[in-house]
């Protein structure tokens, strides 16, 4: 029996705990149903309600239109050994210093000194992790990370001095949305927006945390709301999806679908031709990376469109054809 798979972490126990905490002062059936709808699976109400309000578990008593908890206090589950061992593993990760001060980290390590960590960072080897990852031990990097994280939480604009690869150093006010992390690149990026005064609208930006020189709360009044930021980052990409054909050789379909599983996509299988057609939605910022990832599959993956993307693939092949001396 796996230690990870237990009802104590389950959706049903969590819902019951919340209902009981809310029922100390009485709760209506409608409010119970709302908690279930918010936190449960799609059929949870059907399975959970009979036990909860039908009296089978004897947790609630009905008085008038409301249900009251039969317990004297609220429920707060202590952390399990499994959860503590996972937290203990974090204390050995260099990135923990981005969140906890030296003092807090020492205190946490002290509290967990009897706990065997669930894993050690050295248990994992990632040969393809990029070698220019962010400097997690650097004091300036840590200070900038914390300032930006605080701004993400507080939802306020932040003045950032930034050393861009092509355009050099600049300073301006950014409206932070969230921090994005890539384990492959071993980098944090700030997803944010700037206010384009000319166009009078917010424009998306992505900043590498490793290139931030300094960050501090901006004195500017907020000009981009949280809702606008959400809309900006969560709206479907306007560019057309890439359409690809994957042939059933060299285990290409399995490799391809696993590698591109993190993209919003749609796949169909043509049984007659024995090929898979896949449409991948993507952000334009990722186009160059997608292009080389598709090339890495060689002739087992063929780009069908859109034309602009197809032209870029062909451009590379034309260059290669010339380097091969013009021979197929």
């Amino acid at each position, binding site marked *: 029996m796996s230690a990870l798979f237990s009802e104590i972490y389950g*959706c049903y126990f969590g819902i019951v705990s919340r209902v009981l905490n809310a029922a100390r002062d009485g709760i209506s059936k409608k409010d119970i149903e709302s908690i279930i709808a918010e936190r449960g699976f799609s059929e949870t109400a059907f399975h959970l309600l009979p036990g909860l309000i039908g009296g089978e578990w004897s947790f609630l008593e009905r008085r008038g239109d409301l249900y009251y908890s039969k317990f004297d206090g609220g429920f707060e589950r202590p952390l399990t050994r499994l959860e503590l061992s996972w937290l203990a593993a*974090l204390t050995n990760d260099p990135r923990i210093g981005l*969140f906890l001060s030296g003092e807090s980290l020492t205190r946490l390590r002290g509290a967990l000194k009897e706990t065997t960590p669930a894993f050690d960072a050295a248990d994992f080897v990632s040969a393809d992790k990029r070698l*220019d990852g962010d400097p997690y031990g650097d004091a300036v990097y840590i200070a900038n990370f914390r300032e930006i994280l605080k701004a993400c939480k507080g939802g306020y604009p932040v003045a950032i001095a930034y050393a861009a690869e092509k355009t050099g150093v600049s300073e301006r006010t950014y409206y932070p949305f969230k921090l994005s992390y890539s384990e492959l690149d071993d980098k944090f990026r700030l997803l944010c927006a700037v206010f384009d005064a000319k166009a009078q609208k917010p424009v998306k930006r992505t900043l590498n945390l490793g290139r931030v020189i300094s960050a501090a709360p901006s004195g500017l009044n907020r000009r981009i709301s949280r809702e606008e930021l959400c809309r900006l980052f969560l709206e479907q990409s306007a560019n057309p999806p890439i359409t690809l054909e994957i042939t059933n050789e060299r285990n290409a379909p399995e490799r391809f679908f696993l590698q591109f599983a993190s993209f919003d996509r749609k796949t169909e299988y043509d049984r007659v031709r024995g090929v898979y057609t896949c449409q991948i939605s993507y952000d334009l910022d990722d186009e160059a990376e997608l292009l080389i990832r598709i090339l890495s599959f060689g002739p087992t993956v063929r780009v069908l469109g859109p034309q602009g993307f197809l032209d870029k693939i062909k451009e590379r*092949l034309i*260059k290669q054809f010339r380097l091969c001396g013009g021979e197929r």
Partner: protein
Amino acid sequence: MAEFSELIKNFNKIRSFMRDFYIYGFKTRDDFSIKSARTYDNEKRRCESYLGDAMKWTYSGGGKVSFVSADCGAIPANPLFSAWKSKSFTTNDITLHFYIFDALRAAVKSAEELTEEIAQKSQRSFDLQTVRGKCNEYAGLGLLTREKIGKKYVYGLSQNAVKPEKELLDAVKFFQGGSLGVIGNYILDNADAVNDLFVFKHSYIAQTLEDAVLYDILTAIRGREKIEIALVGSKSGKTVKPTVVPAKILCGLSSGRRYLCAYIPSAGRFFTYRLDTVKSVEAVGPAENYDETQKALSRNIGKVWGVSFDGESRNQTGFSMTLYIDEGREGYIINRINKEGRGGVLERVGANTFKFTRTVFDANEAMPWVKTFIGRIISFEASDRLKKRLCGDLSRMFEMYGIDKTGGTEE
């Protein structure tokens, strides 16, 4: 006919089904090689129930196709974590859970005292052994303390010295996107918190389906134990159970695959096993000379490009490629090779011409990376088989995209 339940007893029941839905995203009922139509319908219904909006469907030539699709760069938590929260339980399990916690609020109590108090309050009688069994189970999980006073064991609520709040809670929001992240997600659930700060790029959410076997392997590594692993052949479907010494988890961050790297004493060498093919793990006793095994791996791991210790001859071979790079305008390509080249050597051999060389056990593993430089490859040196394969692939691609002898396209 048994009533449908959205909860399950055994995680493996949903594991492969969900993986197929998520990764392949094109299978119809006919594509699943499982026993009956009702099994397919039930598992699909469970997936739909757990995954909510992430589960989509479309009609294709073969019928209605269900699939899971999520842009991992935009979601706060892995939607597949839901499957881990679907463990079934009995009426006794849930009743005792809340009544035991309630009864131990103010004082430690013996199983006898708990049994009596719970019966009074719940108007239901429980067997003493059942209550004691649940208390011992919870003591094992760390939820309760167990202490012997006189001749009896008494139980109390664990008082955690660690509270996941403030900065630590932020850290949990971040690390729940990493190794064994579902545990972090449990901590967030328990703290009534959600990750509202981080998103994850190059994230392979289906990997969580392997977390149970990963946890067991990591526990064995910590305990320096040998393990018996049940492996299911991806094509044959047959199960074999080798005994191995677990050493490392090799992660393909570009490919999304993770492997157990283990030493087989009888063969005197290391093997790698894809985690998604490992069905279960059982510790079978201490591994002899564990430090030596780790040292031997350290000596060899640097010669592995991805995960393979094989190659064509088991000797170190390698490859080199000469690339055209415009020195004036394409410094970023040189940077890219330096950060992606896994310790290989890049040298300038002429104007705008650079040669990359890397010695590895299995150069075949590097071929996808080599192909990312299509458009720049002046020459490629490796075994005859690999050279032939690259040339063949390029020829097929020229033909596929209609590149003609003039260096243009045939359109």
